[in-house]
């Protein structure tokens, strides 16, 4: 197993994006550290596969960030170099949005506001079976426009799903602009608290802080569902992508690919020819 180094994870995302000429690079980049910490410590027991019946569930409700999850699955050996470098080739299995037919992806999302409810159901199932499984559900701040997200949070509180940890990827952007411009969420942490979640906020790119707060939330006593607002930067990790919403849609050219890979290599990532 590899170390989920954030620079290498971003390079894997770039490889996929270049191979498939895909969009949504920036949507994946805001999730990298969050997923690295989760996969390193809080999801599968070492050596277990994606279908391990005792696994903790990672529900990517924000399906647009799926390349970040593929990069982690590549680190685990669940995906091969061929899967990465032939992304979007005819007849391949990895799609541009989360798809539950892929082992390791728990939900089919991309149409937003679905995954959190399925995660609520998984958490309820675990409670009823008396297992100790946790559900980590990652929701985009743009996705929080969807009414179903708030239905799910109401339900999670009412049924005391303390094994559900809802993580908001608060990168401040959605497809057409900032969340402030498009549909102002106000103070998202206050909203989660108002819905009955035991809520924390964290710098979503500080791995030590993420690990600390996730560990705290997991072990916190009480029957409230848990919420974590991860303040992130859309496009984090590559200087010319960070905070620039055009990288929700822009495809990599040869030049931007090389520049981004080199910048990550200079920060400790791998040097690619």
């Amino acid at each position, binding site marked *: 197993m590899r170390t989920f180094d954030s620079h290498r994870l971003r390079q894997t995302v770039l490889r996929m994006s270049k191979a498939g000429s895909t969009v949504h690079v920036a949507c994946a980049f805001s999730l990298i550290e969050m997923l690295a910490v989760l996969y390193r410590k809080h999801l599968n027991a070492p050596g277990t596969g994606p279908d391990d019946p005792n696994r903790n569930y990672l529900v990517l409700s924000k399906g647009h960030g799926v390349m970040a999850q593929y990069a982690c699955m590549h680190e685990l050996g669940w995906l091969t170099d061929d899967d990465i470098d032939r992304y979007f080739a005819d007849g391949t299995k990895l799609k541009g949005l989360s798809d*539950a037919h892929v082992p390791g992806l728990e*939900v*089919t999302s991309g149409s937003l*506001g*679905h995954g959190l*409810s399925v995660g609520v159901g*998984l958490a309820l199932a675990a409670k009823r079976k008396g297992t100790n499984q946790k559900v980590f559900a990652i929701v985009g701040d743009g996705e929080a426009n969807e009414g179903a997200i708030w*239905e799910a949070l109401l339900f999670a509180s009412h049924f005391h799903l303390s094994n559900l940890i809802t993580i908001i990827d608060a990168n401040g952007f959605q497809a057409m602009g900032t969340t402030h411009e498009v549909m102002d969420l106000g103070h998202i942490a206050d909203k989660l608290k108002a819905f009955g979640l035991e809520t924390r906020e964290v710098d979503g790119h500080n791995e030590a802080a993420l690990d600390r707060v996730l560990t705290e939330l997991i072990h916190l006593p009480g029957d409230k569902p848990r919420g974590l607002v991860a303040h992130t930067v859309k496009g984090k990790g590559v200087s010319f992508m960070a905070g620039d919403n055009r990288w929700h849609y822009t495809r990599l050219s040869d030049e931007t690919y090389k520049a981004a890979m080199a910048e990550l290599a200079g920060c400790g990532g791998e040097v690619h020819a």
Partner: protein
Amino acid sequence: MRNAFAAALVKAARSDPRVVLLTGDHGYALFDEMRRVCPGQYINAGVAEQNMVGVAAGLAKGGFRPVVYGLSAFVPVRVLEQIKLDVCYESLPVIFMGDGAGVVYSSLGTSHQSTEDVAALRGVPCMSILSPADASEMTAVMDLAFSSARPVYVRMGKADLGVVHENIPDLQWGRMIPVQKGAGPLVWLATGSMMQTALAAARDWPGSAVWSVPCIKPLDAEHVAAVCGRHEAVVVLEEHSVYGGLGSAVAECTSTHGPTWICRVGVQDRFSRYCGSYDYLMREHKLDVESVKAQVRDFLIMRQVRQSVRPLAA
């Protein structure tokens, strides 16, 4: 019929702790026995149908056998995307109960009436659609639904129209059930609430065969075409739009395996205009016995005219 559903649910829940009922704050009194006998397997998910279906999907993924109950105007129509993505794409064993299908809520208006639910679901892969006509069929339908490891929609329409079968019929996926034998020129295929209307109207055409169609999807196309092929023309009756429901399905089957003349009796691509009793609205939509007879007579005249102008034989 609703009591047969409630009894089947309680029986399944008692014998299998994985069975859980989710309701969107509907079903007053219907679940009294369920709540008394298996209180831990009853979940009121509140007035939040989208989340309810997602939760059902998560429960099914976690090994449970959810039954999702709602009015058919909301389950499946309001939550069609959740059914498609969260449940059907993974072919999860979730049973959806759509109560009050058709124009049962005659006085409440369009929001509670549902004449497009079958059409909406027929195109969703992995979903089966069952539509019982009486309490015995409901018992058979629930047995079939609980025996399935895939998504099933049970359409529950007007529930107190009387007995069709003296015993619980032998129900198999894709097959119709014979109700009245006959070798006359007409065969009548009816589903759900239109079964009694079919039997009553068919009396004007002696020798009519009448079949009940509790399984709308899957439908065994060769079986349907073979049954239709024994007669000169077919009448299909449903309390649903003539677009996308049983009539369409029968036309699809026969057009490939044995083209024939089909009179599709149903709601004519429009909303209910007025308020009133169930019987009143059924008359408004020309789904009462006298209106059905008139439609069939007109259809047979039209068929005769067309055949004499353009004979099929060379």
